[in-house]
């Protein structure tokens, strides 16, 4: 079997393929061509040397969905809502997260007010129909939207999460009146209460639908033209994959398909090594991302705000919980007006890039600091394809940072890296400590071009004892896509006291959801269902997702569920109230269709590790460089050992071992590093 994953990022399109029979990996990289994404994919396959007709399965992740939204390049979209709620989308929650900013900005609705129409209908909180759907006002809205020439329509009626009948009726009428428009009904996208967030999520889906749906369709068709006869899957934000058909209906689900690949890969790599608890740490050019994996499962978040909480668009579809901080290789170091040294969030990006890239960059970055400290070899960057200018980097750091602060360039470079490390450590803390997990119980998995460079310093800072640098750290997202399962998440708001909960009704809802889930599932034979109930103490707003079993629901075992809630609460918040009443808000169902596991080849033992050269590298003392041996990763066989200080170079990144760190190469190829305890 040949499985191929293609990850389109902002700059590069990465391909990783694996040939099951030949036990062989294939890699290819090409520049992303935003105007011709489909062609870019086909070119990348050609570049890999694989025959399209030989590929059994192709998994694809792309930034097209998020870029369409962020760049506001989606469809002309209309919105149909319940009478009285025309402005719910614009008013939102009325909040100003930047509390002292007089010149704050709110989110910007994707649908203008004149394309938002009210329909007379009303469903009550319990689901009862208060006013039947008025077809005349619906017809008028359709006619107006048609006259306006909208390309997409979103519908969000109040309480449709409990009773979607009116939305369904509206959907039928809209399909009849505007057969060529892209249609999203809120209950099909998100069956959860809170009308603003549901409207926003549905509007986002409709807004990006024609373009992203069209892209997926065109990709599918064009691949057919190359002789590809395998299955195409699309990566989604929840860490699973979906069929092209599902992707065309719910493009909003593929919003964060890029970054989650690396997290899936971290989970799988950890599991394969018998380490079910890992923290994935991915550092690229502009940001660093951390995410926690427990018992082999990534942590899920119920949704997020595209463009940031203060003024972004809420998209409430389950996604893997990622904390992102503005610290990447390109993050710029600067001195503020009171003389404090800062790093980021401004980034030199790829263009002009760090000073050392010689692309016109004039501001010192984290990458420049690493060059100055000797941790990046100017002659062997990207396998020597790109020569770095160490003198210019030193000069830039000296002029912009060291001189004003009265320190040496080396000390300044060290300060820049350390401040960056501290920021990244806060991100790792946020996914662990703040959720009640002790990072010392986890292994840190480093990826991204800058991840392995900094990971050991972060591990030290957080007292994490073990670090893994996996295979393909700079194509890690694509690797994760190779390994991802099919996954669909469903949610239903169902509000009731746990003690008096109608479990029979809940089991019926579960069956409905499961039926819907299985219907579109490609790997239905190997499916696994995970059920969670969102529970909270009566009076609270925030609920915890408590894992339950179908057997518990069938037995109406509210005691066991209650106990699980109290325990989870205690774990998260260090206190709980077992005597207080609790209520259920939502039922969640995740359906995972397991894809066949790939068996990667074992690495051969090649004997003792031999350095190719040595370099002077600064670690903790800015006055004294250490002489560190440099190893080529490709030359390290299974069982090889490397003791820090040392550098391990590979094409897209360098692993920096600090004095005392001990690295051992696993039989499956990963670098497993025991971190020297901080003194």
């Amino acid at each position, binding site marked *: 079997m040949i499985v191929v994953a293609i990850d389109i990022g902002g700059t590069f399109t990465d391909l990783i393929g694996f040939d099951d029979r030949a036990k062989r990996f294939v890699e290819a990289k090409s520049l992303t061509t935003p105007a011709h994404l489909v062609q870019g994919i086909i070119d990348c396959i050609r570049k890999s040397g694989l025959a399209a007709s030989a590929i059994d399965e192709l998994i694809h992740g792309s930034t097209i969905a998020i870029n369409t939204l962020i760049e506001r390049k989606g469809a002309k979209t209309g919105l149909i809502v319940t009478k009285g*709620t025309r*402005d719910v989308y614009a*008013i939102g929650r009325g909040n100003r*997260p930047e509390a*002292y900013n*007089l010149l704050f900005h709110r989110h910007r609705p994707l649908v203008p007010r004149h394309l938002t129409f009210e329909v007379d209908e009303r469903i009550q909180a319990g689901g009862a129909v*208060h006013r039947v759907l008025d077809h005349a006002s619906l017809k008028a809205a359709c006619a107006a939207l048609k006259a306006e020439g909208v390309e997409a329509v979103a519908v969000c009626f109040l309480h449709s*999460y409990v009773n979607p009948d009116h939305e369904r009726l509206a959907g039928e009428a809209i399909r009849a009146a505007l057969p060529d428009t892209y249609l999203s009904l809120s209950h099909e996208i998100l069956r959860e209460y809170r009308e603003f967030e549901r409207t926003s999520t549905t509007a986002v889906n409709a807004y990006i639908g024609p373009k992203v749906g069209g892209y997926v369709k065109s990709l599918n068709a064009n691949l057919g033209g190359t002789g590809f006869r395998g299955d195409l899957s699309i990566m989604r934000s929840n860490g699973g994959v979906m069929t092209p058909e599902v992707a065309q209906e719910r493009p909003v689900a593929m919003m964060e398909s890029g970054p989650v690949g690396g997290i899936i890969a971290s989970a799988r790599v950890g599991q394969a090594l018998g380490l079910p608890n890992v923290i994935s740490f991915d550092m690229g050019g502009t940001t660093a991302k951390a995410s926690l994996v427990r018992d082999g499962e990534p942590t899920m978040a119920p949704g997020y705000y595209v463009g940031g909480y203060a003024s972004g668009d809420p998209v409430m579809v389950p996604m893997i919980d990622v904390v992102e901080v503005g610290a990447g290789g390109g993050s710029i170091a600067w001195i503020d007006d009171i003389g404090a040294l800062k790093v980021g969030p401004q980034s030199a990006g790829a263009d002009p890039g760090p000073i050392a890239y010689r692309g016109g960059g004039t501001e010192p970055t984290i990458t420049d600091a690493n060059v100055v400290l000797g941790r990046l070899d100017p002659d062997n960057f990207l396998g020597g394809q790109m020569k770095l200018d160490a003198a210019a980097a030193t000069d830039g750091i000296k002029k912009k940072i060291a001189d004003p602060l009265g320190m040496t360039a080396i000390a300044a470079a060290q300060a820049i890296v350390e401040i960056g490390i*501290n920021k990244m450590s806060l991100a790792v803390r946020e996914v662990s400590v703040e959720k009640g997990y002790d990072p010392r119980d986890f292994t840190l998995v480093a990826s991204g071009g800058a991840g392995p460079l900094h990971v050991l310093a972060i591990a030290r800072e957080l007292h994490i004892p073990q670090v893994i640098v996996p295979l393909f750290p700079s194509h890690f997202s694509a690797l994760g896509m190779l390994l991802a399962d099919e996954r669909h998440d469903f949610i239903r708001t169902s509000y009731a006291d746990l003690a008096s909960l109608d479990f029979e009704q809940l089991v019926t809802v579960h069956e409905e959801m499961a039926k819907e889930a299985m219907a579109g599932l490609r790997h239905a034979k190997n499916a696994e269902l995970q059920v969670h109930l969102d529970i909270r103490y009566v009076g609270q707003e925030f609920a915890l997702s408590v894992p339950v079993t179908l057997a518990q629901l069938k037995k109406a075992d509210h005691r066991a569920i209650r106990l699980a809630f109290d325990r989870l609460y205690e774990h998260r918040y260090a206190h709980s109230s077992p005597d207080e009443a609790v209520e259920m808000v939502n039922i969640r169902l995740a359906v995972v269709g397991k894809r066949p596991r790939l068996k990667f080849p074992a690495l051969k033992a090649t004997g003792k590790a031999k350095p190719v050269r040595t370099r002077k590298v600064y670690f903790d003392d800015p006055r004294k460089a250490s002489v560190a041996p440099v190893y080529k990763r490709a030359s390290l066989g299974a069982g090889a050992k490397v003791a820090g200080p040392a550098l391990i170079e590979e094409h897209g990144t360098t692993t920096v071992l600090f004095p005392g760190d001990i690295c051992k190469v696993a039989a499956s190829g990963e670098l497993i590093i025991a971190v020297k305890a901080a003194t």
Partner: protein
Amino acid sequence: MSKPIKKPKGKAKRSVKALDAVTLEVIRNALPAVANEMAADLQRTSYNMMIYEVRDFCTALIDPNGELISQNVGGVSHFVADLGVLIVDGMKRYGAKGFKPGDVIITNHQAVAGQHLNNVVIYMPYFYKGELLMFNMVRAHWIDIGGTSTGFGAGPQVADPWFEGLQLDQLKIYEGGILNETLYRVIKDNIRFPESSLGDMKSQMAACRLGGRRMDELFDKYGRDTILAAIEQIFRETEQKCRNVVAKLPDGVYEASASIDDDGVRKGEPVPIHVKVTVKGGGMTIDLSGCSLERKAGINSRTLAGARVAYKALTGPLDPVNEGSFRALDVIIPEGNIMMARFPAPMAGWSAIVPTVVDTIVAALAKAMPGKVPAGHHGLLGGAVVFFGMHPKTNKRFVVQSLEGGGWGGRPYEDGESGTVSVCQGDVRNGSIEGIELKCPVMVESRALRRDSCGAGKHRGGLGIDMEVSNLVEGHWNFEQTRRTKCPPWGLWNGTAGDTGAYLLKLPGESVFRETSGARLPVPVGAHAIVRTGGGGGWGNPLERDPERVRSDVREDLISREAARDLYGVVVGSDFSIDRAATAELRKQRQGTDQSGRNGERGS
């Protein structure tokens, strides 16, 4: 009038050894992270929407001298003041040796706390290696504190603190980790929603403990002396940053005035607000002596919040808050002023006038920083939606609570935002319609922007909101609101004023809404109420607004064709096209006629 009191100057400098840039920066990032983590914990575990949606709370670390080490960002902006005084008072009561680990102090007494009694403060001493180094504090709005305090708090008619609710004066609810059962029972028996409020108390304590654990980690890592030295240096640097901003303003005295219609008791007698801001060489003095004397109505307070919020907004809105943020600011408020009221002056609606005070200070500085000061915003704490009662089926009490935002003023380069909470509220969210209806027996008929509620200008104000609610069971409405009909949200540089807010009610059988007011107003099933918020003022001359933007506003139904013609001199046809000739003619006629907005040079 008693002698003006001034905010205390910074304490004597601790001996500071040179700190390296990295350690300093790391500690600078870590301290606000501790307060923010405390806040996140509180918010997710709290039981009342005042905390989880309105975020009417703050979390802070305060040193034993009452200096603010760090505070969370996000919730209610006016909590940026008035925390240190509680510690100074507590230290006076108990003495430095009077605290021990495991103590939990609860207080809301207005002689020092100076706010409505719903704002209950919990704080715990923090010891490192046996030394009292700071206090972890959470101030949070309880949904009820007995008396007439239900919901957002009691109204202006509440004559004194005893009427308002339970007063707690620096009491140890836990002493050395042991619960004071008697005190606990007294609280439990004297408030309406004990499960909710005592649950919140538990969350407040948990947040304080969390802060303590995080500080332990920091002290262990960097050591006592380094941390304390870093805190002092952070204060000094923050102060310098603020001075640098103010130093760019022309020295001078800047004044502005505004008014509230009345104090809610003496109807029709305005409450004057007058501010005098003196800028000199990087320092700023905000003198509120010209504001009303304390009133016999619950709109008094003891707070520096008005001055501090304005100063923070103008000097470093996105930076974390600490004591240094305000060291270059002097605030003058005489004892007996409405914002330095003496116990037992009623304070049930303590924050009602604060947004207007902040906005007046900002307006005073319009001339000093013309590129940064917007026109006036709705200036009130939002349209409070408060309906409560007993559900006849479940026999359980319910309270509908939501805060509806209003319009913000036009800005030097863009329009103001619509439907957003006031300058004293940050990440304060309205109740979702579906969430309200799931929990309470009401129907929200509409939540809509109010056409033409915005002030006109080159950059117009944002729009206010109408929230219409009908009740499915009988209950009581609270229609208490500070009003600004005589001083609507002002325009700036010839922009016009925004419209003001109101409450309207239509009882069953009636055909029209009428304006109303009052607390605990009983209504039968099927009444309809509208909570209305004001719009923002316009910035700049409306005749200079791009006709395309006027056309777009008409197209979006944000302003009427009449407003386009009368206020902006733009004639928009029925097909939404601009009649260029008629527009040019109209604008020519209008040039030179007087516009009614406030400019930066004068008060009203």
